[in-house]
């Protein structure tokens, strides 16, 4: 499987108190553990089981994910611009893999 590639779409600046949209996606098979290979063996589960968005270290949006999340998991969610700083996006994969991205947000 190719290495998962995370991407986010976030405004670079917002006004104080503004609600802004975040789009986050990662290329990932999201293997459910329910499928079998051609020899009848179960293909082991390997999914992104958690996604967290930190805003200056505070986990402002968290998603616990199960097998029923589609491949290439995509989330659109909404945050309030409280202060300038760092948004960090973290995807946790079964087996300990971690993928992340960071973004600087200016709150004017």
């Amino acid at each position: 499987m190719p290495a998962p590639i995370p991407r986010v779409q976030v405004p670079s600046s917002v006004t104080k108190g503004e609600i802004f949209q975040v789009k986050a996606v990662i290329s990932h098979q999201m293997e459910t553990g329910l499928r079998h290979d051609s020899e009848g063996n179960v293909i082991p589960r390997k999914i992104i089981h958690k996604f967290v968005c930190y805003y200056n270290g505070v986990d402002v949006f968290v998603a616990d994910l199960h097998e029923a999340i589609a491949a290439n998991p995509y989330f659109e969610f909404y945050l309030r611009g409280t202060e300038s700083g760092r948004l960090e996006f973290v995807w946790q994969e079964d087996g300990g893999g971690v993928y992340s991205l960071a973004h600087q947000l200016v709150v004017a």
Partner: protein
Amino acid sequence: MDLTRRELFLAGAAEFASANVVSAASASDEAAELIKRLTGKTPAESNRLHLLMPRTFPNGYTVPLSLDIDSLMTENDHVKHVHVLAPRNPLIEVATFHFVPQRSQPRVSTRIRLAEPQYVVAFAELNDGTLLMTKTWVEVATNGCE
């Protein structure tokens, strides 16, 4: 009239299909029962939860889902989490989303897998422990869980 095997099969299929049509009321009871089993608490059906999904969708692999909950999101009145369940999937839990008062809105969109036509259920837990629930019928043509 002699029924062919095919006609018999179709008659049986029709009967089977009608037996599978769940009324909205019994689906609510079923959903509430399921939530009670999972949480120990009885949810109230609420129009503050908006669960938007297509009524019919060609494939079960990537069905769009949008959730929006009416809430002030203040310290004293906010949504803590919202859970999404697909009761007719082989594994019924879909996702849980957590929100923070003053910082995030209880609103999210994603894409999910559905194994068969079913009521998708969402329930939110408020800061005072109240559970609110809603459901929406989605008809998928192919199994998204295989």
